[in-house]
């Protein structure tokens, strides 16, 4: 253990005397006289129940969190009465605009309200019948790569959540919901590959190196831009591609339900960057430079042969030349649209028009021929 309580409680005569006294009926009631605001949270909409937005009241609400947390580093509930000697948990991310996003509490509520279970919400029996081998092989490979993506997207919040001050409890809860979302994507992609009969496909060295680069971001704002805005935008496009090319209800649901989850991460990513830059405009240059050197990773992931070829094959439907040409045309349009949407999100987040400085539009044009 690296931390020990200041007393050995078993040897603490004072504590034992106090407990003995209480158990003799002499209650202290010190906690009852605590001077915290007497406020009552109430559901604004009974159909939604009592949400975190409803609990955004007075000193207990997230609106009351200051930009800099200077004296709250323990595990005390936000708004509770602080006493002396509360242990410092060693949080290193204590600035609100480094993590916060408007609407993050609502995104957390949505993550729970729209939860789904791959085991029962995907009609696996639709996929149990004899299916075209080429399509099944392509789906198994695409899902193998998407499982790699989801594993990293699951680990990213896990790397940071312990370092973030728990005054940001709604945000930390959202990061935990992201982990559950991504665990679900790991599960659904793995199950889809295994139900194909082809088993899992090939791991992608390009994708894995790219994903490791994203996972290795050195600050939380960079990590959030990397995972939520950049990777999230292209993961959303990848699932949308699979949804568009699905020839059965199971694959369509797999992709659209996953899109619904990833869209929350993208929404958080955009809102987080916007909030971050509104409060720390000098960081715009640093985040833009980070994207300049990091955007190449999407080519390693979405453009890896382990994803792109299955996408082309799913769009083609067969391996004859004419069909493959149609499939390739679909993939070029798909990539161009994914780049456009990502750049639009960057602009919406306050990163300005990146078309001139980003390598991605040029790449998309080159691919389009």
């Amino acid at each position: 253990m690296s931390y020990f309580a200041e007393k050995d409680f078993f040897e603490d005569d004072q504590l034992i005397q106090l407990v003995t006294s209480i158990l003799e009926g002499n209650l202290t009631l010190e906690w009852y006289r605590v001077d915290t605001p007497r406020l009552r949270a109430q559901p604004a909409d009974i159909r939604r129940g009592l949400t975190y937005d409803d609990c955004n009241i007075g000193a207990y609400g997230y609106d009351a969190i200051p930009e800099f947390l200077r004296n709250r580093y323990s595990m005390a509930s936000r708004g509770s009465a602080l006493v002396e000697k509360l242990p410092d948990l060693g949080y290193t991310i204590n600035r609100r605009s480094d993590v916060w996003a408007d609407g993050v509490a609502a995104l957390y509520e949505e993550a729970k309200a729209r939860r789904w279970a791959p085991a029962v919400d995907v009609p696996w029996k639709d996929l149990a019948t004899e299916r075209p081998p080429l399509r099944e092989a392509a789906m198994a490979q695409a899902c193998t790569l998407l499982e790699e993506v989801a594993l990293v997207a699951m680990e990213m919040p896990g790397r940071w959540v312990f370092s973030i001050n728990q005054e940001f409890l709604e945000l930390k809860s959202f990061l935990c919901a992201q982990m559950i979302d991504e665990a679900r994507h790991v599960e659904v992609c793995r199950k889809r590959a295994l139900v194909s009969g082809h088993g899992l496909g090939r791991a992608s060295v390009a994708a894995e190196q790219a994903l490791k680069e994203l996972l290795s971001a050195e600050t939380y704002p960079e990590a959030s831009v990397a995972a939520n805005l950049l990777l999230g935008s292209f993961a959303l496009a990848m699932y949308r591609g699979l949804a568009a090319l699905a020839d059965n209800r199971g694959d369509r649901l797999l992709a659209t339900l996953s899109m619904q989850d990833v869209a929350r991460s993208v929404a958080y990513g955009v809102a987080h960057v916007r909030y971050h830059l509104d409060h720390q405009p000098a960081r715009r240059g640093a985040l833009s430079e980070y994207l300049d050197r990091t955007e190449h990773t999407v080519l390693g992931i979405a453009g890896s042969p382990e994803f792109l070829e299955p996408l082309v094959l799913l769009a083609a439907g067969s391996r004859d030349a004419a069909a493959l040409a149609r499939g390739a045309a679909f993939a070029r349009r798909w990539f161009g649209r994914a780049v456009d949407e990502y750049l639009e999100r960057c602009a919406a987040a306050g990163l300005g028009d990146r078309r001139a400085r980003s390598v991605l539009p040029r790449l998309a044009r080159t691919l389009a021929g």
Partner: protein
Amino acid sequence: MVLTLFRFSEYISPTEGDKKLFRLVMQDEARHVGYGMQHLKWVLDHFPEKRELIHHHLDEAENFVFGGGYATEVLEPFIILSGKGLKKENVQEGIRITNAFQVKQTEEYFERLAKCGMPERRERSRLWKMLELNKDALGAA
């Protein structure tokens, strides 16, 4: 310990809403306990040499549990809720119920450890010794 704490919370809850809240929390905590037990059993089965290390860890962890469980911020609300009031007779009844709960909580913890393959924990645990004292106090009451 926390699982039994939530079960006790459900038992003493004054409203159906509170009871449901704690019941649902218990459902989640029970999964954690289930995982923890299976994991500890697996570790002891595969790495029996770690037994002593785990005992040392529990020596310290049980100290935290004792300090946390007997904090006035926990103990007194439980006494009031289980006794259903602040009158002398309510408080006496609350103390009797809370004491019984704490005995049960600690016994269940040691039963789980025994099921995981650590039945000898009772003999070396100071928490168990405290439990024996608590039982004596209950018997005397």
